[in-house]
């Protein structure tokens, strides 16, 4: 009898490994499918907007660059049509578009903002700003918020946490751009503690000396702070709620009955379980905050993707706008995939159920 049981447990182990592989393959499959579907939707949205992009482009071109030679414009537009295959039937355009996405690494031809630099290079140029300032602040906000929320949840019956919850709630509901505006106005203009905008002091050249770097950092504080305050408050409240609900679970009562040290209970029992949904939350927020980040970049005049997008919009730069949208879809989906794949490390149950 016992031997039989051993066998089933071994079988379970093998099937567990197989399930892990299956989980990864399935997640990856969903990722690719979603990516394809999102790109397809984006394609049709771009094509469905009223008006011929080329006509608008032409009008825009002559307006923007005034004395643009009509022939030169014709050349550019012809080039565009060729690159995009806009004279082709829709399905061919679609195939071409997918081909571009896959084989040329999100390359959709030259940008107009900085003609003839390709869109992709432009995005790559601007990316360090967005990643350096915003991704960093989202991650920092997540770490700080999770820690703070855990403490607040653990001590949830103390009086002080009531105040902290109220402050967090207020911060959380305030849109990030209002916090940014407030910081610009108060800290930047009224108090003059920190520069209210721009990537670095205007008279400096980007070089690796201390003067430049310190200026860079001083300029980064306010935008990062605005993102961290609002998102951090959200993460704090979320983690607090998760902790409180985990504290009500049976295994926590049992751990207490077992006489396990409070610190061990906090670490191995409460935190580890509460972290699972909190990590999923990070993935969702990473996607959702993109909107707010665009605005913050514009408000602080940082040369990231958001500003690029607004510039491109001003010039009706069809290529660049599409490139940025697709790039952000790609980034968000990839981040979600990474979080999803990391999740089983935290939660052994996921390996079984998809």
């Amino acid at each position, binding site marked *: 009898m016992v031997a039989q049981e051993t066998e089933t447990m071994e079988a379970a182990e093998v099937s567990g490994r197989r399930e892990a592989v299956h989980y990864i393959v399935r997640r990856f499959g969903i990722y690719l499918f979603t990516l394809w579907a999102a790109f397809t939707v984006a394609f049709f949205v771009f094509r469905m907007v009223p008006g011929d992009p080329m006509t608008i482009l032409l009008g825009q071109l002559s307006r923007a660059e005034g004395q643009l030679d009509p022939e030169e414009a014709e050349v550019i537009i012809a080039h565009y049509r060729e690159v995009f295959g806009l004279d082709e039937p829709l399905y061919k355009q679609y195939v071409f578009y997918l081909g571009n996405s896959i084989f040329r690494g999100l390359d959709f031809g030259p940008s107009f903002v900085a003609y003839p630099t390709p869109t992709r290079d432009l995005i790559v140029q601007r990316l360090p700003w967005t990643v350096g300032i915003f991704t960093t602040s989202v991650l920092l906000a997540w770490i700080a918020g999770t820690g703070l929320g855990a403490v607040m949840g653990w001590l949830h019956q103390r009086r002080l946490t009531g105040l902290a919850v109220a402050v967090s709630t207020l911060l959380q*509901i305030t849109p990030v751009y209002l916090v940014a505006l407030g910081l610009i106005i108060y800290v930047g203009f009224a108090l003059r503690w920190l520069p209210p905008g721009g990537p670095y002091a205007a008279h400096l050249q980007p070089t690796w000396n201390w003067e430049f770097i310190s200026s860079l950092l001083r300029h980064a504080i306010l935008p990062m702070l605005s993102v961290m305050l609002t998102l951090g408050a959200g993460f704090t409240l979320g983690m607090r709620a998760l902790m409180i609900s985990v504290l009500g679970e049976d295994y926590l009562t049992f751990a207490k009955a077992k006489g396990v040290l409070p610190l061990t209970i906090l670490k191995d029992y409460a935190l580890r379980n509460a972290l699972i949904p909190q990590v999923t939350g990070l993935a969702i927020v990473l996607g959702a905050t993109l909107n707010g980040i665009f605005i913050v970049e514009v408000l602080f005049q940082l040369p990231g993707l958001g500003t690029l997008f607004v510039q491109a919009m001003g010039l009706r730069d069809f290529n660049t706008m599409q490139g940025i*949208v697709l790039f952000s879809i790609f980034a968000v989906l990839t981040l979600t995939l990474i979080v999803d794949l990391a999740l089983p490390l935290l939660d052994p149950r996921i390996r079984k159920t998809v």
Partner: protein
Amino acid sequence: MKNARILIGVVMLAVILAVALIGPSVVDRVLFPDESPTSRGSYRPYQLASTAHPIGTDGDGRDGLAVFVSSITPSLAIGLIAGLISTSLGVALGFFAGYAEGRLDTLLRILIDMVLVIPTLPLLLMLAVYIERWDLYKLALILGLFGWAFVARVIRPQVQSLRERSYVDLARLSGENTPEIIFLELLPPLLPYIVYVLSLAVVGAMLAEAGLQIIGLGAGGLPTLGFMIAKGFREGVIGVGLLGQMFLPAGALIVVFLSLNLINTGLDQIFNPRLQTTIEGR
């Protein structure tokens, strides 16, 4: 009222609504009888706060307070219309997905997730390029069309869990057909939750609207709170010392969000008794 949060939230919302509805006529008749405080060039622009103009005048020579009180209603209207559109679309799709089984359900779930990852703001900005003249309804409609995925995503699991309850089986045994089960059995218990989601959608739409204005929907800017903030920022009203023209609209937005948040968490406390744990309850 049993719940302090709901009470405070309702009072705050009522104050904002009162200002939005009665404010314009009060300002017109009491403060500025026989004048048109919201027409361009009525006054000298950028006047500092005074008894004549409590928060000064704006760059177009209008009275700041009059502009402020008349901006609230359009903001709320956009939020409400867009929220209603996205909630009804999302609820319909969430119910459909929650009621579907197998492959269809998986497909719908992926569709919802996919729409969720498409960044809405850039798309809205792109649309702004092509739409020459914005009006309130167009903006509300578009915001609503972009917000349904979130609603569908949260409604779907709720429907699924309700559908597992045996009262749905009992209803079928009592001779109810599928539409009756959806509208008489599944929808009513979810109504409080749907109201909750609606308020989130309203907040989301107002947020997006103000964001769009601030980033520069610009050209045909609608007279909303967001537009007032954006305009004030662009014209540098703070530098001139007209703080009120910035903080009043921003404060109004925050008050709306806060009141809805308070009402929601209060309702959650009532409908979700998990916070009050008792041992005997098990």
